[in-house]
């Protein structure tokens, strides 16, 4: 009896309490993506992309099938094994290469595949003349698009066409008082050896440092694309601390500043912004002869950046992320345009990093009064959520929760200003909202960070572009953080396990029998799937003083 069960939809179920679970996890991690990690049974998914990633990382079908056979509790359907072997075999039948005369060419190890591909409608326009039976010229400008299209056809091409060196610029790691961790070095090296690709590391595992290490290997001018301004500042300060780069060498290219330096950090937002339907900041890509482009949080890469990236295939590209799963399902574009997965953190490492089960989540349900229920039932659909989410009944519960965590750093998060103001008044705590001036904001955050201030009420709108300070307790009264992915990320960032190994607390206060509760159910599912502990409590019990 082993610990792995193969489902017919190509998901793998891993019983985590089984004694072989750790070995099995190591065996399947290269070719299966972890999808859900609740307490007993983890779900992995085997996708063509995951298999091709495994191929790109040097694993072969034999190894994959071996893992299946040695860990599977039940016989694995033969068709599945055949399918896996066939899928893996499709990788690398086609190669992009540089031809001494014809420049960029598509070369086939298998002539039949080339014949199939050159006949495909979508690809015709990207190819030039036939060089020989196994080779066809490719328009250099189509390198990225061709890779995308080939992936869609199920014949992912390996890119051996090499990279431009770019403008040289000396970057070195400044290892004073800290050291590059083993896995960080491995990640950077395997990226550099592969030329371009994605490094998958959990939050807090030091992705920025991997980026810095990659820069020191490339020794060239670097463009770094990140999600938002806060991240720009983080990268900047990290680079200053970890490398020999000086302030003058690092430029910031954002909504407010447009400096172009040997190392330039830009936000996706700026790059994707359009003026009169035209991407007005495209020139940044041409501004220098970049030798390396780093994409932070590659799972959030917006569509326009993909399009731009398609034209940058001759430059080294490093993607950094905690997960390859994209909400929009464009994993294939990451694979073909940024590159295959070059490094994946070992699971144990992730656990040590505290990424798993970092917080304890409690949903507290309040009852609406009869009159509120009637009002809720008759409210217009668009007002319903606002109505139940900002129920007056929540205030008292929040007050009780805050009282219980007296002395701990507590954040109260909500979407509706009226409700937040009311809470601020009730808790005698300052409120940060959209209209709060930046100076005031920073002052309050500083006071919170230093422990001078214990309780802070923040609006969701306000905290979108600002790095929330870490807190031991968060109470969410309304709204949610965008996509589920983002929500987990923010929660993860917000709630770090405390030094005394007491886990952080996340409360969601919801109104019973309303759509507020339905939203909470979605959150519950996702958090449970991420391995967070999740419980539900009644507001009445909380108020009556029950232990949570």
């Amino acid at each position, binding site marked *: 009896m082993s610990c792995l069960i193969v489902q017919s*939809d190509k998901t793998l179920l891993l019983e985590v309490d089984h004694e072989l679970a750790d070995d099995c996890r190591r065996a399947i991690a290269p070719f299966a993506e972890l999808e859900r990690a609740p307490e007993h049974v983890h779900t992995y998914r085997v996708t063509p992309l995951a298999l091709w990633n495994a191929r790109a990382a040097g694993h072969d079908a034999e190894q994959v099938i071996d893992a299946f056979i040695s860990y599977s509790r039940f016989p694995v359907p033969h068709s599945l094994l055949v399918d896996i072997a066939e899928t893996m075999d499709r990788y690398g039948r086609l190669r992009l290469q540089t031809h001494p005369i014809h420049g960029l060419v598509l070369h086939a190890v298998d002539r039949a595949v080339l014949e199939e591909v050159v006949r495909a409608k979508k690809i015709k326009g990207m190819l030039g003349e036939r060089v020989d039976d196994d080779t066809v010229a490719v328009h250099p400008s189509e390198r990225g698009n061709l890779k995308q299209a080939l992936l869609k056809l199920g014949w992912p091409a390996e890119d051996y066409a090499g990279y431009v060196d770019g403008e040289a610029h000396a970057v070195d790691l400044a290892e004073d008082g800290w050291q590059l961790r083993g896995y960080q070095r491995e990640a950077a090296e395997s990226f550099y050896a592969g030329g371009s690709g994605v490094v998958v590391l959990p939050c807090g595992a030091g992705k920025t440092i991997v980026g810095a290490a990659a820069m020191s290997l490339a020794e060239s001018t670097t463009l770094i694309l990140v999600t938002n301004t806060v991240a720009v500042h983080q990268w900047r300060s990290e680079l200053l601390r970890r490398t020999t780069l000086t302030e003058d060498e690092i430029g910031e290219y954002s909504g407010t500043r447009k400096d172009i330096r040997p190392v330039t950090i830009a936000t996706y937002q700026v790059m994707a912004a359009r003026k009169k339907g035209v991407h007005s900041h495209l020139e940044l890509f041409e501004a220098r002869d970049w030798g390396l482009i780093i994409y932070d949080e590659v799972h959030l890469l917006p569509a326009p950046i993909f399009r731009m990236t398609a034209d940058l295939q001759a430059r080294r590209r490093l993607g950094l992320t905690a997960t390859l799963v994209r909400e929009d399902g464009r994993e294939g574009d990451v694979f073909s345009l940024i590159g295959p997965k070059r490094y994946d953190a070992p699971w144990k490492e992730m656990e040590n990093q505290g990424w798993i089960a970092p917080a304890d989540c409690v949903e507290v349900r309040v009852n609406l009064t009869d009159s509120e229920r009637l009002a809720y039932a008759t409210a217009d659909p668009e007002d319903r959520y606002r109505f139940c989410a900002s129920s007056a009944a929540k205030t008292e519960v929040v007050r009780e929760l805050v009282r219980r965590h007296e002395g701990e750093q507590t954040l109260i998060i909500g979407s509706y200003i009226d409700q937040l103001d009311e809470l601020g008044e009730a808790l005698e705590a300052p409120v940060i909202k959209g209209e709060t001036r930046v100076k005031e904001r920073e002052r309050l955050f500083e006071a919170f960070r230093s422990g001078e201030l214990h309780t802070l009420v923040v609006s969701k709108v306000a905290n979108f572009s600002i790095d929330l300070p870490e807190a031991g307790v968060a109470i969410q009264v309304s709204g949610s953080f965008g996509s589920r992915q983002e929500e987990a990320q923010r929660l993860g960032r917000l709630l770090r396990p405390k030094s005394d190994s007491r886990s952080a607390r996340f409360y969601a206060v919801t109104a019973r029998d309303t759509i507020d509760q339905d939203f909470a159910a979605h959150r519950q599912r996702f958090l449970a799937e991420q391995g967070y502990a999740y419980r539900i409590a009644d507001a009445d019990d909380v108020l009556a003083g029950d232990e949570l």
Partner: protein
Amino acid sequence: MTHDADAGPGGSGGRPPTFTAWLRNRTDAQLAALFALRPDLVTPVPADIAALASRATARPAVLRVLDRLDRFGLQVLEGLVALGDERLGGPPGVERDRLAAALGAGAERLGDTLSGLLASALVWEDGPRLRPVSVLGDILRTPAGLGPPLRTLLADRPAEALDRVAAGLGLATGYGEGGPAERIAAALGEPARLERALELAGPRARPVLDRLLWGPPQGTVSGAANRGGDLASASSPIDRLLALGLLVPTAEDTVALPREVALHLRGGTLFHEAQTAPLELSGKRPGADTVVRAAAGQAFTVIRSVAELLERWAEDPPGVLRSGGLGIRDLRRAARDLDTDETAAALLIETARAAGLLAADGEVDGEWLPTPEFDLWREAPAERRWLRLAEAWLRSPRVASLSGTKDSRGRSRPVLGEGLDRRSAPEVRLDVLGVLAAAPEDLAPDEESVAARLAWLRPRRQGPAYADLVSSTLREAALLGLTGRGAPAPHTRALVEELDAEDAPLAERDKTASGELLAAEMPEPLETVLVQGDLTAVAPGPLVPRLARELALAADVESTGGATVYRFTEASIRRALDAGRGADDLIALLERHSSTELPQPLRYLVSDVARRHGRLRIGTASSYLRCDEPTVLDQLAGDRRAADLQLFRLAPTVIASRATRPVLLGRLEELGYHPVAEAADGTVQLTGTAPRRAGAASAASAARDLEEPAAPGAELRMAAVRAVRAGDEAATTARRPVSAPDGAPPRSPTAATLRALSEAATQGRRVWIGYLDTEGRASSRIVEPARVEGGFLTAYDATRAAVHRFAVHRITGVADLDASSH
């Protein structure tokens, strides 16, 4: 044509030996064995031996046996036809020794094969010589690649051409001494003279002969028929050969190598090599354990998938195409639902239908629905469920892999539709499984070696269609869990062995070796699940049916395979509550079967849904009564006479009734309440919730349509032997009157009649029956019943001395003849 069948009473004594006579001398057991080998000979039972002989030597019947012969059997037969031809000059037939020498085959193997050929009456014994039935000469036109004998070839030649040949050979020309053709044939039949003729032809002629030597014996030579000339003037090798009769023109441009010449040149052997045994199978050796596990796992997947699909279809049945069959979209959807491809889905669907689990219901807008049989099947143990599917597949002429291919008019053939039947499919499947089962333990024979083995086993069947069937059979066997990693599983070997051991279907037998072997490999049903905080429950293996049903009710199935993942949602919990489960029952059930502690959010979910469940209540009423004065309704509610109206008070001023409005109106009028009808809004529409099923009849007929006529059982065969013997006796001996006992014809009730007739048939007794002929005249007959089926009695009528069929309903009664004559 079939002079074998020349009947003739008597048979022996001076008359030339005939096939019929030989057949007559076979023992009863041998005849019964013949019927077992060739069931088509006794449907219907022939009247006598002569009729049997002529049927046994009829071309279609012989072709049917030939198709089942293996390569060596065919070679032996070809040898007999080639050498035993009387046109070669000798008496018809071949001695065993000569045949063995010509084949160069081991005596033992030859002996076995010959007794097989004798048993199936393709060959008969004429003293020491073996003779093929004559129709074989027509069927096997070029036995062993040999051309016709000289006598045949020369018969059509003009006289002057024959004269030239005779001259060339130095023989007398013209008529006299049996004519030139006979003379030439006799001369070339002697090895010495033939050798001399070959020398005369010259060394350059030899390569020409060699090209035709091992067949085909015909060659093309332009103007062959007119290239005459005598030996002296012939210059080219071909002309010399023609002039010497070593080649004979057969048509304008073709020549043939005479059999005598070829046999001589071959040095007496018929074949390069007698293929007494097939090639060894070759392939990978995946390991016995892997094979068993893989096959059993697949078998489990098959029964799970069929159940899953049919349950889906019970709720949301796909329509029957106008042309019959299943639409491509429905097939794709099924494939998606089962996480498999269309080929596999098509196979499962066809197999489910063949097993009688799926049928089109008879309505105009037909739908594909599970049959009532499906409900029984679902309750059976896993191995029986599989056996039923496997056997249905084996015996079905439907070839699922043909679905989606185009027919002759370019239309795509749909699954479950027309054009997927291949009459030979069951036979091919059995052959393939037979070959696989004969493979050594844990050998997974590759397709080529299986095909090669089958080419030996069924040489006359070969062709592209056959090859397709073989490869689809191998694929389907793997999909159905008959093979694992290409090697037959132990349960499959057992299945092949016991398939025809009894008449009952495998799944209905008390005990089957295949079932037991499979049951031991199937995963043990579990009683526990793992319930998790994300509101899923994982069953790490198959569940006991009761738990599986309860879980499927209370949770949605999210993924299946080795395990089943269930997800609890508000809707699924509500479904369970709707089905009458209480919140406490659900929690208790989960607590009992969860191997870990129930996550707290799940308890909340159940109690949340339960709290809101049933706050609104709905009932069924067909009509209502309203009255502003509650006292009137009090009075009505208390009225005993109105009890049949099933009135119930909903509110002081409203009464609802199950009776329909006209009924209520009429009854209350009768009782003197004088109600007035209201506009008819608010009547409740009833919805049926029972899963829909197709009628049993249509399912049965669908299954029956596809069946081949069954081979007769052992009893029936013996009865047939008796009937034929009796007929033969009647036909061959002088008629002797049989007198019926005195008195009126017997009368007995129909059931008794049937019983008595069947008894008499099995015991081979003669009985006395009363019979009304077509004009209604009563008569009495003495008959020897052979069999009773389909409302007819087939019996030898001793009074008329012939085999007759009697309509059972016209038989007025039966009396035991022997008893009555005492």
